[in-house]
């Protein structure tokens, strides 16, 4: 451990440059680790949200926007669909578990979602405090909504148009909170109310839906029905699973570009590590010559040289852990809640171990060059020229 202490002392002498290299290296590793987690998180979110959803009916528009709006609840809907037309198609014998949605207003940044009891069954009751609504103008709020708006069971609130109050509100029509659901994303940011609440407030006599989600029993119907609906109606009918896969493909392509950039960052970090050590042994060759003159073996010299690189990489890995923890605790600030990376995706992965292992192995290997250059120097010259 003496070698480690001497290497540490040597690094303290050039703390600025060593820290900078550790930082660059850690940024590269953090980038890779975050990309991996974001990809895993996105896949998990989509899989959870699309589970049991084979058909999405909504107003015509962008399929991707529709997934984001009606499944992940992070985008605006492109319009409403007539309930009569939709219900006609929903009578198909292979269709099961229909969930009808009608977007209401907002409570601050949180969306009021009119839905039928099938949605509540889909979410379940295991984490519900209170009960699901039984009549119009009753609401169940997600845990994040409850926390942010300080609402609890029995409280009342009213919705407003859009994200800000001055767009107009429905102050004369209060919702009453009858339950709080501590569900996972994206439901924790939603205010659930019966469809009738939304229709009543907006005096919607046609009882329009914003979207309908359903599962389909028959694989062939799953494949054919969306196209048939598209052709025969003015509604958009898409297979969320297929659109989800398409979204993931695009995200993966974007992710690959990001991965190349983070790899380049790591490469720059590794080259800097190598150059820093080379510059250090060149500048301090007299010290290493003196180590030899004092009786050290070449193995001892190598230990001192290599530990310096290993310590920089260990610092980089520490920065990485700190960076990932910061990203974990601050993700709600830079990611929409529905896209927050689930806890399972934050767990240490094989890729993390591989990246840490590669970095440590490189730190050792990259010490060999500078060490060999020391072996070549004339001890006499190093001491005389110092």
């Amino acid at each position, binding site marked *: 451990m003496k070698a480690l202490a001497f290497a540490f002392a040597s690094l303290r002498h050039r703390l600025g440059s060593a820290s900078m290299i550790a930082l660059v290296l850690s940024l590269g590793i953090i980038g890779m680790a975050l990309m991996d987690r974001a990809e895993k998180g996105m896949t998990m979110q989509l899989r959870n949200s699309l589970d049991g959803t084979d058909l999405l009916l909504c107003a015509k528009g962008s399929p991707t926007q529709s997934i984001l709006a009606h499944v992940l609840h992070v985008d605006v809907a492109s319009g409403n669909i007539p309930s009569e037309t939709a219900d006609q198609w929903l009578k198909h014998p292979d269709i099961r578990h229909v969930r009808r949605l009608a977007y209401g207003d907002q409570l601050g940044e949180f969306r009021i979602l009119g839905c039928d009891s099938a949605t509540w069954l889909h979410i379940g009751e295991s984490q519900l405090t209170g009960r699901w609504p039984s009549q119009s103008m009753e609401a169940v709020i997600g845990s994040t909504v409850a926390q942010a708006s300080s609402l609890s069971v029995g409280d009342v609130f009213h919705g407003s148009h859009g994200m800000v109050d001055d767009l107009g509100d429905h102050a004369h029509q209060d919702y009453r909170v009858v339950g709080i659901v501590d569900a996972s994303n994206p439901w924790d940011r939603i205010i659930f109310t019966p469809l009738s609440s939304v229709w009543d407030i907006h005096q919607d006599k046609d009882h329009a839906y914003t979207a309908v989600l359903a599962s389909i029993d028959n694989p062939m119907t799953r494949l054919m029905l969306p196209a048939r609906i598209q052709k025969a109606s003015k509604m958009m009918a898409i297979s969320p699973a297929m659109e989800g896969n398409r979204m993931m493909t695009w995200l993966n392509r974007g992710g690959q570009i990001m991965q190349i950039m983070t790899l380049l960052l790591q490469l720059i970090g590794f080259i800097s590590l190598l150059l820093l050590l080379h510059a250090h042994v060149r500048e301090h060759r007299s010290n290493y010559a*003196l180590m030899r003159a004092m*009786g050290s073996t070449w193995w*001892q010299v190598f230990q001192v040289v290599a530990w310096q690189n290993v310590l920089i990489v260990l610092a980089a890995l520490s920065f990485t852990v700190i960076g990932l923890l910061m990203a974990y605790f601050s993700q709600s600030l830079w990611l929409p809640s529905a896209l927050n990376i689930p806890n399972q995706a934050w767990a240490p992965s094989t890729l993390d171990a591989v990246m840490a292992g590669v970095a440590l192995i490189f730190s050792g290997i990259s010490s060999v060059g500078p060490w060999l250059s020391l072996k070549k120097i004339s001890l*006499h010259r190093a001491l*005389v020229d110092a």
Partner: protein
Amino acid sequence: MDNILQASELAVPVGINRQLTFPPLQLQAGELVIMTGNSGSGKSTWMHALAGLQGIASGHVSIAKHGQLSRTHCPPDWRQSGIGFIPQRPFFWPSLTVKGNLDLAQWCKGSQGDLQSWVERMGLTHCMHQQAHSLSLGEQQRLSAIRAFSHDAPVLLADEPTASLDRDNATALIESLRAYQQVSQCAVLLATHDASLAAMADRIIELPSPS
């Protein structure tokens, strides 16, 4: 008295097709030999060749171990060379304290000897936890000497250690070397330009100017 170091006529390459040749040398236990000579006469080169820091073209160096002279290789097996070395300019490991530099010296040599008494005798106790680079030049040279003592070497080579010191510090350093010699009975070869130190020497060798 038995020789503790014996060097034949050493030829040291100093550039292309040029060699410096040095006279044969014998050092005896407890002896302080002062080597003088003009700048460029090869004092450092000879000392480095004797210490095994510099390759030689011909000749050999033998050092007594357990009373037996045995020939060293060039470069020698450092741990076995039996030579302590005080360089002209004291080098210290960056950011290490006085204690840290002494630990480093002992780790390099693999020795566990107690240097505390020498630290006290040479007046460095108060600065054990200071950065070695922050010491005065005189203190740095004394530290450099203590570091060489950690080798318990039978031969101590000192390459102009007093070159940058004032008279008082130079005298104090040589007295310390003498004191160490009395305890360890090592042979000391000291290169210097300082004629006033000659009075302290048992023997003086003057290197001729290079032709």
